[in-house]
């Protein structure tokens, strides 16, 4: 835990000394953002479709189908979008990042950076952390938009809820504090999961039970598992402050 904190501290400190940072941040934004966008879009639409479907059947028992927009929007904004987008990003970008760092450690690319006098954490990790702070909230926002559209698709087109009623319920339900909670969660998940994936990959050689390719696969698995668990733990902690 202490070593992980030190690692994160070094990454933050490296931001002040790292050279040509904007170019590497842009590249990281592309890798975390553009590359993961199709997955986020698909999961977002289907989450909205399912929420619309399930929500309609629950609400119709109480004759409250008009509240479908409220249910879908608040579920998405406050919980589903930041959590599911983070889990998808961990699965795609986080695992790739941990594996890439593990291979770079194995093939001495990280050692090569250090012998050049380059701050390896500053070069490899810091841009990803900055990028995560931008990309995770942006992906959560995309998830919300597509999820709402998915909810409207199943609610209005398939189940007959009036489209105007659905969208006006959405508009009335979502407040500024809900959006703040959504973006705060997304940014926190981005920071935590990227740091964990970076730490696990960067120290893939510290794995005492395996070495080489197996150490890379073990560290990648650990990175994904720990990140996913931490997303849910952090979600509970942040939610408890907003409820």
């Amino acid at each position, binding site marked *: 835990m202490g070593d992980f904190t030190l690692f994160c501290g070094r990454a933050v400190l490296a931001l002040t000394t790292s050279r040509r940072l904007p170019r590497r941040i842009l590249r990281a934004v592309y890798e975390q953002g553009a590359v993961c966008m199709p997955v986020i879009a698909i999961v977002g639409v289907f989450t909205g479709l399912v929420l619309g479907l399930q929500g309609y059947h629950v609400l119709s028992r109480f004759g409250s189908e008009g509240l479908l927009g409220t249910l879908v929007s608040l579920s998405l904004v406050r919980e589903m979008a930041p959590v599911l987008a983070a889990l998808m990003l961990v699965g795609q970008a986080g695992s790739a990042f941990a594996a890439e760092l593990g291979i770079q450690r194995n093939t001495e*690319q990280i050692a090569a950076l250090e012998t050049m006098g380059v701050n390896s954490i500053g070069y490899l990790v810091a841009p990803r952390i900055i990028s995560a702070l931008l990309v995770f909230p942006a992906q959560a926002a995309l998830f919300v938009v597509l999820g709402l559209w998915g909810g409207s698709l199943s609610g209005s087109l398939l189940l007959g809820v009036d489209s105007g009623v659905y969208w006006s319920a959405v508009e009335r339900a979502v407040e500024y504090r809900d959006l703040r909670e959504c973006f705060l969660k997304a940014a926190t998940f981005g920071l935590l999961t990227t740091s964990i994936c970076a730490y696990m990959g960067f120290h893939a050689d510290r794995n005492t039970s395996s070495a080489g390719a197996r150490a890379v696969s073990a560290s990648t698995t650990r990175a994904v598992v720990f990140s996913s668990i931490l997303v849910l733990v952090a979600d509970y902690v942040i939610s408890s402050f907003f409820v």
Partner: protein
Amino acid sequence: MDFALEVEGLEKSFDARAVLKGVDLRVPRGSVFTVLGPSGTGKSVLLKCIASILSADAGRIVFEGRPLVDPRAHQDFLRRCSFLFQGNALFDSLSALENVALPLEQTTSLGKKEIRERSLEALRQLEMEDFADCYPGRLSGGMQKRLALARAIVTQPELVLFDEPTAGLDPLRRNAVFAMIAKYQRRFRFTALIVTHDVPEALASSDRVALLNQGRIAFEGTPVEFSRSTQSVVALFRDSVDALCQSLAAIRSEQPVSL
């Protein structure tokens, strides 16, 4: 004699296994200095301790008269020293040109245009300019070695550490790599510290050689002194290399077995 690098009493253990047991070494400035020794004697460990990739348990490393325990001296050492890794350690997601430009981009305040020109010049000097846009994975072993050397010399270092520069190469390429090191060492006047177990090539291209045996420097002198040394450990190492060559020749001369 003027020394670029001095190593005093260097010790390194992994768990309970002592690999370096007090290595003393002095590398004259502007020379090609080769550390010989059988595989597994800690030659690479020695080089990695010098380059601070591994931390030594005890001992002192002095570069240009300044001990490397001083953080500023260490930073200065990293700026003036390059390391050529056994496996080249090239960045596989960067092109050849980007690989060579990386140390300039990250450690100097040179402009984009100058970095590009200096990187292309380094590639040109190693006859690699036609492969500037190629990724390392698409280059042959020898070309990767040349690319790694281009990256090592682009910052105009005063000391270059070579970790088994001919590992995995065929005899022709081994000769070519040693010739290349000797050629560029003379052109750029850097001090070269090489660890290898290729005795004939090392003797032909080095100014001084040392023999690392059981964690200590057992011999240090000129290649001629090494060849003529009657010291038992030197003779044993030399003879084992000769014996290996003879046994390989004997195997090759045997009739093929018909199945």
